[in-house]
């Protein structure tokens, strides 16, 4: 019998969680299988029946519904069905129907339970509680040392200052000072023979009183460890930790084949984790004109890519990218004021949407507005603010923050109004909510002041939060609105997917991924009068607030949001790497079976949270 040659065994070996299963267990599993075929539309399992086999889908797709007929999820090749009833030895609690012609492999329940006991990974995978599984997955991602493994020294090293070994100590120090280097590499005819750092001058020259004119070889560390430029950064970190030094020569070949030397420092390695972002903010705030800002903004995709590669949490990446968006906006306003002169009346330049929440990604448009002091007189001041808005919004568009498709920009006169008009806007939205108005108004419930007189916004927000707490009709409308964005229950095969430009089935990670959580967190905080903007921070505040959301639910929701956000950012990073304009449309095929599974768990958590929201705020009144 040639089990190892069977395609079935290969398929099993590629399925989660069987990849690491021992060969003998895999053989045993293969031989124990039963194969069954279900024509589209035929029933595969029924609520209340006993089940003694776990299904692994080989091809086709199936649909799972609750006894009440609600769609629970859709599953395809590589997904497991029926394991809960087998593990718990309980009747089936859901209906399973073939959604397409489907071929399944059935694992006998006895063998399945045996594997649960024998194999820790297998056991974990089928662990009963989805949120726990999801939390484990997030931990795995964050703990992976992916960051320094995937960055190469060639990307981090700077060209080194080299001196010959007979160069004087003083001459070396002068050169280092002149070139602003903290290290010099020492060479002789054979090549690299040593390294000196700032520290050596302190420890070896001053402390020991060595003659300043003596050759540098007397104070160098001889025969230093080196690494080739194509070594991963993680190797440098290991060497540094092991031998306790802070600077490492990096050897590469120049175009003539001669050895070229660079240096990488411990600080470079640490900085690579949050590469660019911090430095970019500094450069942006000194940019001389819009053109310089536009040039700097072109580093944004790379900054995102670096941060994703470093496995930073999505929350941190959102903050860092928003800091960049904020810096660019602020600098544009400063430049506008330089050109137009000081403002005739105080104003606040406020932003909405992702930038306000500090959740920007690679694909962001601009949402902004001007709150003018009530001393504003349209006949005298309108032109100034129109010009300012034009300057800033055009500049943002040039920097990649494209014009808001809904026209929610300071460019639009409607959103360039004195405080008292804004008060009326909000009163209207809160006291006489209409679904259409609320669609874009929801952007204005996340407002942050980036420039100007911040008190204009803080007074407005205080009033808003007082009103939203009482306004149950408003809350119900917001809840109904939030339900416009539902997480997909099955993330492939069928109606839950959108089509992209190439007519491929894709999953909109913004609309169906992050927005359901963002909308939900906004509603709860507005209803509770909590003054937070960032979704994660809102959720945390809700957990802390009496009558918010339970700690457990909040923790689950935060995990789900983090996982969905990470998937979205990883997709954008891949697109940036591939030289494609980043978007939010993820093709399910590009996700691994495991990622799809975790994503499904995350969506299930969000979906449950939405159901609780619906009940609490009576969203059904308008549906």
């Amino acid at each position: 019998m040639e089990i190892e040659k069977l395609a079935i065994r290969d398929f099993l070996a590629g399925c989660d969680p069987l990849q690491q299963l021992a060969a003998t267990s895999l053989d045993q599993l293969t031989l124990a299988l039963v194969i069954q075929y279900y024509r589209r539309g035929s029933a595969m399992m029924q609520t209340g029946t006993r089940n003694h086999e776990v299904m692994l889908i080989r091809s086709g797709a199936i649909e799972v519904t609750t006894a009440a007929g609600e769609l629970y999820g859709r599953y395809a090749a590589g997904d497991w069905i029926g394991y809960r009833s087998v593990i718990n030895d309980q009747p089936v609690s859901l209906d399973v129907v073939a959604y397409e012609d489907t071929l399944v492999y059935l694992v006998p329940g006895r063998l399945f339970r045996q594997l649960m006991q024998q194999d820790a990974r297998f056991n974990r995978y089928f662990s009963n509680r989805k949120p726990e599984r999801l939390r484990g997955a997030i931990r795995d991602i964050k703990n992976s040392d992916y960051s320094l493994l995937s960055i190469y020294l060639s990307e981090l090293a700077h060209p080194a200052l080299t001196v010959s070994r007979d160069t004087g100590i003083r001459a070396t120090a002068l050169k280092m000072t002149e070139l602003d280097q903290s290290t010099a590499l020492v060479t002789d005819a054979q090549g690299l023979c040593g390294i000196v750092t700032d520290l050596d001058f302190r420890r070896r020259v001053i402390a020991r009183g060595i003659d300043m004119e003596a050759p540098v070889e007397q104070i160098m560390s001889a025969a230093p460890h080196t690494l080739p430029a194509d070594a991963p950064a993680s190797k440098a970190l290991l060497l540094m930790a092991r031998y306790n030094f802070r600077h490492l020569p990096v050897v590469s070949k120049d175009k003539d084949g001669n050895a070229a030397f660079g240096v990488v420092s411990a600080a470079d390695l640490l900085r690579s984790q949050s590469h660019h972002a911090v430095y970019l903010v500094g450069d942006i705030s000194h940019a001389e004109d819009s053109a310089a800002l536009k040039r700097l903004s072109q580093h944004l995709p790379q900054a995102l890519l670096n941060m994703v590669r470093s496995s930073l949490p999505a929350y941190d990446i959102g903050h860092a990218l928003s800091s960049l968006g904020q810096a660019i906006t602020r600098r544009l306003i400063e430049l506008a004021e330089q050109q137009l002169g000081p403002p005739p009346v105080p104003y606040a330049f406020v932003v909405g949407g992702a930038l306000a929440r500090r959740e920007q990604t690679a694909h962001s448009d601009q949402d902004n507005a001007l709150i003018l002091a009530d001393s504003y007189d349209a006949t005298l001041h309108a032109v100034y603010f129109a010009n300012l808005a034009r300057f800033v919004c055009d500049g943002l568009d040039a920097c990649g923050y494209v014009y808001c498709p809904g026209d929610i920009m300071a460019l639009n006169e409607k959103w360039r109004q004195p405080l008292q008009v804004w008060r009326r806007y909000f009163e209207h939205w809160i006291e006489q909510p209409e679904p259409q108005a609320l669609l874009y108004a929801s952007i204005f419930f996340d407002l942050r002041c980036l420039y100007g007189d911040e008190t204009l916004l803080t007074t407005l927000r205080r009033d808003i939060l007082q009103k939203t707490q009482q306004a149950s009709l408003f809350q119900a409308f917001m809840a109904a609105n939030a339900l416009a964005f539902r997480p997909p229950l099955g993330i492939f095969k069928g109606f839950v997917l959108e089509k992209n430009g190439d007519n491929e089935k894709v999953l909109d990670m913004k609309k169906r991924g992050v927005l359901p959580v963002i909308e939900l967190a906004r509603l709860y905080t507005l209803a509770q009068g909590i003054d937070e903007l960032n979704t994660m921070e809102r959720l945390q505040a809700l957990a802390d607030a009496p009558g918010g959301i339970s700690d457990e639910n909040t923790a689950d929701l935060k995990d789900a949001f983090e996982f969905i956000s990470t998937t979205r950012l990883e997709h954008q990073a891949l697109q940036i790497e591939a030289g494609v304009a980043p978007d939010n449309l993820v093709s399910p095929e590009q996700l691994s079976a495991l990622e799809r599974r975790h994503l499904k768990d995350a969506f299930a958590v969000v979906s449950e949270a939405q159901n609780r929201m619906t009940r609490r705020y009576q969203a059904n009144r308008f549906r």
Partner: protein
Amino acid sequence: MMFSHWLSPAIQQKYLLQKVTEPTARRYLATPLPDKNTGVADLKFLALDFETTGLNARSAAILSMGYTHLAAGRIVLRDSAHHLIKLDIELPQAGVTIHQITDDGMHQGIPLAQALACLLTQMRGRVLLVHYAGIERNFLQAAMKQVYGYTLPFVWVDTLRLEQRMLARAQRPVAENQLRLANLRAQYRLPRYGAHNALEDALATAELFLAQCSRLQAQNAALSLRDIMG
């Protein structure tokens, strides 16, 4: 055996029991073959595939056989088997690349009589399931004749013929190569199997049959052996 073409299997079995002495063959003959009117749900099948050194059963030999059980709409891998047959001839080069059976592999095999005895034990009371019966039927008959001196009766379903008849009934034209196992499987959206191996092909045939049956049974819930055999 001229009469094997027109005598019922039951009569052939009775007749051959008087002639055949080999115990395995006798046990096979003593077990009634399935009746034509049996419903498909109550039938037991044995999906079978041979790899051979050529197409002509008189001059070529069986290299390997693979088979798997199918009953009540379920393929059970536990009872599957794959036998390499030990031959006394050198393998022709051309076939080697197709079957990935090398001379070495073949010499590790078992004698044809032994493999046939295993197969016959599994065939008792079952319907053979093959894709393109031309090969398996002729080679099986030749092997029986060689080992037992007589051709023993068996009933079979040919998934290729079955598809042909379904297409003819629907008055659909048949494209070239459309009826090849891999192409038919693709039409039924069954997964692609790469390796050319007798057991893999037997499994592939069994899966195809499940798909065909599910379609036929959707039209005729009382589908019986008569409707699909031959």
